[in-house]
């Protein structure tokens, strides 16, 4: 599992964005209290929080609550919960299309019967939306790369480094969390 910082770096790598892009959005939504602040404590980040950061990054906005609270038209779990599940286990995800200018998303995945299932997420009440539309398509490779990066993130520890590591080379010492 990854810390918040490692998850942000993994999102940048998976989406091929510039360094620290996702971190900037994470800081903005953390300021709103959407994801928890664990400054100085390298705690594992929950999938739901990674989902919030991902949505903020791909929609280039910090107003993610409307997105995360969307429900499928036919009923079911919210978009945030569904996305969090697929971030943790991405192997059945086929395609994700997020409307970047107003809440809305279409999630395509492999269903229980191994057929293609598409779920349309829409907000409960229709907001005023601009006359143009912009859709972000995210393929399965992004989610698979992201899940691998999160699973393979090296453990970080808080506090000072062990004294015995003074005599080790830099490469063999334990990794420390940088400032968030």
């Amino acid at each position, binding site marked *: 599992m990854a810390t918040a910082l490692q998850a942000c770096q993994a999102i940048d790598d998976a989406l091929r964005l510039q360094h620290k892009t996702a971190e900037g959005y994470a800081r903005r939504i953390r300021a709103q209290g959407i994801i928890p602040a664990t400054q100085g404590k390298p705690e594992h980040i929950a999938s739901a929080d990674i989902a919030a950061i991902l949505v903020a990054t791909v929609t280039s906005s910090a107003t993610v609550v409307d997105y995360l609270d969307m429900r499928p038209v036919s009923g079911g779990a919210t978009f945030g919960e569904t996305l969090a599940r697929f971030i943790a286990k991405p192997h059945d995800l086929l395609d994700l299309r997020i409307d970047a200018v107003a809440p809305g998303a279409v999630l395509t995945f492999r269903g229980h019967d191994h057929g*293609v299932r598409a779920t349309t997420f829409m907000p409960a009440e229709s907001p*005023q939306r601009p006359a143009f539309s912009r859709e972000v398509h995210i393929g399965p490779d992004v989610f698979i790369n992201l899940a691998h990066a999160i699973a393979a993130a090296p453990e970080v520890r808080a506090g000072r480094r062990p004294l015995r590591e003074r005599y080790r080379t830099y490469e063999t010492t334990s990794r420390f969390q940088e400032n968030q």
Partner: protein
Amino acid sequence: MKQKTIVRALEDADPTYAPAKDLLAKLKANLATIDREDDDLRFRLSNRKPGAEKTSRVAALLGEEVDEDNAAPNGISERLKANASSRVDLRAAIEIATQRLATARHAASKTICEEVRKEYATRVKAVADALVAAHQAHAELLELTEELNDRDIAWTGSLPPMLATAIFGHNSGRISGWLKDAVVAGFVDKKSIPQELAR
């Protein structure tokens, strides 16, 4: 002259794709129309002049022109209600149409991928052959520079070093990694890879 492979459009590969796409576009356009109308109605509702109770009959008695909003004070609300119910139906229809489009897209994609598979494999094989040839050419260049080095010749001044180690990787490690992936995917026969590039 290389033959151009035609990748068919999704519409050609699956007859159900084009109608499903058109239907979804039409439903989305309808939803957008309703949303626009709602915006307009809400704007009119919030900007309505005072004296909304003056109906058309009263206005006619007064000999005044009938204001459309004031003529039927409940017209806007009723229209909003009607729009809300048709939005519920449209959303359900969009959900089903999206499902149909996704099914058609994946079915058509599978057909097209099967058609293109042979050409894809040919091109991957061509890349593999070119990479092996490039590796051998590079090895010959390295052989020459090593001989120059062995004889203690100061060659780098007059012959600018053009070693491509950064591209090929140490001991052509990048090429051998790519070739291994191609072997695992079944595009390249393992026996056709030279010993020094085999992993």
